[in-house]
């Protein structure tokens, strides 16, 4: 008999007033009892709508059944057939619009907590599994993967499992991409990312850090070196600014810079050499998940007041509901329908305030969301000493500028022929944010997965 409770088992978490002062993980994870109880809420539907909502098609009812049967390692085995990074996805996937959004239990009450169960199975495996993963026999074919983020790592993992000799080239000093430089420790502990990467290394994936494709070596040279295929998963790393006066004042950061200083360079730790400005009042401009991450980091670094400044309404915030809720609990102040027009500075050119106008919602625009229009005589100044611009990123131009015959669109995104990720160059595939522009970790993983299949098909001919 399934558990007919209308609510999910709540996630044990650190208290808001405690966690907004530390960088430890917010969500603590289910106990075995909670996981089994939650797993029993699954009705094991025949048509499996949840699986259709998953970009990497995990057999969701299958793994949940194993949890209900207390076969936790078996549950992990099922997930890992489809996902290279289960402990990561269980934490950062927007389940509410994917698997859980399609769950039948969600029609009346809350859906099954699929994400939390996935995380539970992955954490159980990581804590308890002691054996060595099996290294597949090599087929002798070399594939190069550019970028050690979610798309690249997934593609590398899938190809390695099929026997390819995969080398991942990473520009930074550490593999993980946005998982290490962008998403903060309190949402995704870096030890978990490292463990997933170690798992890939154990099955034979080589990772070369400090290699900037387009500078240290070009794609054409990779082919000369004997690589048969190249997958580009270089992400969308170039930050956008608003082009308003005062953006180059001291104390204005792109979200990328702010988060990289905190997450990759560990500026919050006393033994890190990388500095970050100490701020009392911070305005984060933007309403996405990255903005929530930046705001919550600013709070943890000791800022007294942290604002989210967003030009549309609360209902239009693109961030996940869970992230917005967490941010509010931690004391982040939301200034929606507010748009910056200028950043103000003091005599020493440090930020002293942000001049904004109030907005109201007009007719829907091409995105279907109601267009914000400026309210007359609504100019006002919010006193802040730091501004973080979190209004999106574009693909990095380095690869497209150094690879002849690689077609890109007007936004700088690499053009692919279809879902396989094949680009305008033979043997060159691409996926993730480099193709779509800034999107989610799981969509990038899905693209890496499809490309791995297409590469295998191409090289098996």
């Amino acid at each position, binding site marked *: 008999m399934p558990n007919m409770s209308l609510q999910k088992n709540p996630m044990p978490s650190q208290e808001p007033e405690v966690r907004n002062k530390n960088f430890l993980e917010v969500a603590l994870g289910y106990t075995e009892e909670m996981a089994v109880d939650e797993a029993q809420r699954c009705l094991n539907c025949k048509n499996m709508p949840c699986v259709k909502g998953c970009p990497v098609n995990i057999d969701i009812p299958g793994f949940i059944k194993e949890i209900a049967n207390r076969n936790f390692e078996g549950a992990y085995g099922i997930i890992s057939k489809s996902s290279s990074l289960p402990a990561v996805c269980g934490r950062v996937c927007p389940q509410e619009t994917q698997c859980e959004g399609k769950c039948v239990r969600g029609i009346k009450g809350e859906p099954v907590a699929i994400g939390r169960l996935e995380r539970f199975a992955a954490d159980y495996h990581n804590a308890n599994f002691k054996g060595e993963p099996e290294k597949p026999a090599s087929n002798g074919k070399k594939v190069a993967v550019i970028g050690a983020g979610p798309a690249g790592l997934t593609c590398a993992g899938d190809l390695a499992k099929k026997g390819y000799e995969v080398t991942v080239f990473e520009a930074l000093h550490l593999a993980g991409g946005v998982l290490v430089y962008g998403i903060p420790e309190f949402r995704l502990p870096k030890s978990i990312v490292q463990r997933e990467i170690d798992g890939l290394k154990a099955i034979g994936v080589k990772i070369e850090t400090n290699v900037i494709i387009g500078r240290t070596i070009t794609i054409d040279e990779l082919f000369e070196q004997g690589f048969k295929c190249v997958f580009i998963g270089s992400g969308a790393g*170039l*930050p956008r600014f608003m082009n308003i006066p005062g953006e180059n004042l*001291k104390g204005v950061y792109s979200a990328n810079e702010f988060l990289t200083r905190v997450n990759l360079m560990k500026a919050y730790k006393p033994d890190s*050499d990388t*500095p970050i400005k100490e701020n009392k009042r911070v305005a984060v401009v933007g309403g996405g998940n990255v903005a929530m991450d930046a705001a919550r980091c600013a709070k943890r670094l000791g800022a007294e007041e942290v604002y989210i400044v967003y030009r549309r309404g609360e209902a239009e915030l693109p961030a996940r509901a869970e992230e917005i809720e967490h941010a509010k609990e931690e004391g982040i102040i939301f200034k929606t329908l507010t748009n910056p027009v200028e950043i103000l500075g003091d005599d*020493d050119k440090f930020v002293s305030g942000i001049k904004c106008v109030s907005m109201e919602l007009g007719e829907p625009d091409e995105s279907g969301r109601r267009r914000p229009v400026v309210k007359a005589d609504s100019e006002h100044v919010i006193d802040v000493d730091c501004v973080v611009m979190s209004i999106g990123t574009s693909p*990095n131009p380095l690869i497209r500028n150094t690879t002849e015959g690689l077609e890109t669109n007007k936004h700088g995104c690499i053009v692919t022929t279809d879902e396989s990720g094949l680009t305008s160059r033979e043997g060159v595939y691409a996926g993730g944010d480099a193709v779509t522009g800034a999107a989610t970790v799981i969509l990038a993983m899905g693209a890496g997965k499809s490309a791995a299949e297409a590469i295998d098909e191409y090289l098996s001919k």
Partner: protein
Amino acid sequence: MYKIVRKKALNPTVTLMDIEAPAVAAKAEPGQFIILRTDENGERIPLTIADYDREKGTVTIIFQIVGATTEKLNHMNEGDCLQDFAGPLGRATHTEGLKKVAVVGGGVGCAIAYPVAKKLHSIGCEVHSIVGFRSKDLVILEDEFKACSDKLCMMTDDGSYGTKGLVTNALKELIDSGEQYDEVIAIGPLIMMKFVAATTKEYGIKTIVSMNPIMIDGTGMCGGCRLTVGGETKFACVDGPEFDGHLVDFDEAMGRSAMYKPFERRKHEETCNLFKEVK
């Protein structure tokens, strides 16, 4: 890991190191830079490439001890390894078609001006080098500049060596004496580049400057290195590091480059025993 194969003090505050980094050496060109980290907790700092040896697979860096990381770097010795060394980054100096160029170097900036002068000399360009230092004991790379310059003006602020005066005095004199340059390339402290650009602007001579702002990744990701050039925001790491000196907003760049000075001083005081109270 990237081994330090040679270390040489050029003067009390400037050090040269050859670093084993074959992949970087294979591609390095004058004007480009690298990003390094000394150790696991180190910050990422950009340094412009001073020279390279493709056969030996080494890249030469020359740095002035100005902050925590260069201090740490200076404490490392031959045989030690740097944690990270990535590059070459940025665009190479544009040298094609240049027939006569004045290369202006100031202080440790001469370390970056030198490979540019050398490259220009190697392609048959007439090179007039003007190098400036505060005093005689800080002079670096004199022989190297002599070897690749058709004319060399040595300037010191205090007159203890060469001619007393600023590089702009020498540059102005050369121009006034009738020398006609296709381009002036100025590399040194921001304040020097600002005044070189102001000088050449009067004469309408194209002037290139090399910017070295605070960066993290060096690949276009953080935007920390942004500058205003001709009213537009540019990223030094991917759009530069060289820009038209007549268009760069030097005052803004000077402010931004000093942003973390208070932090660094405090950090230094925390670690330096001289600042600690006697227990």
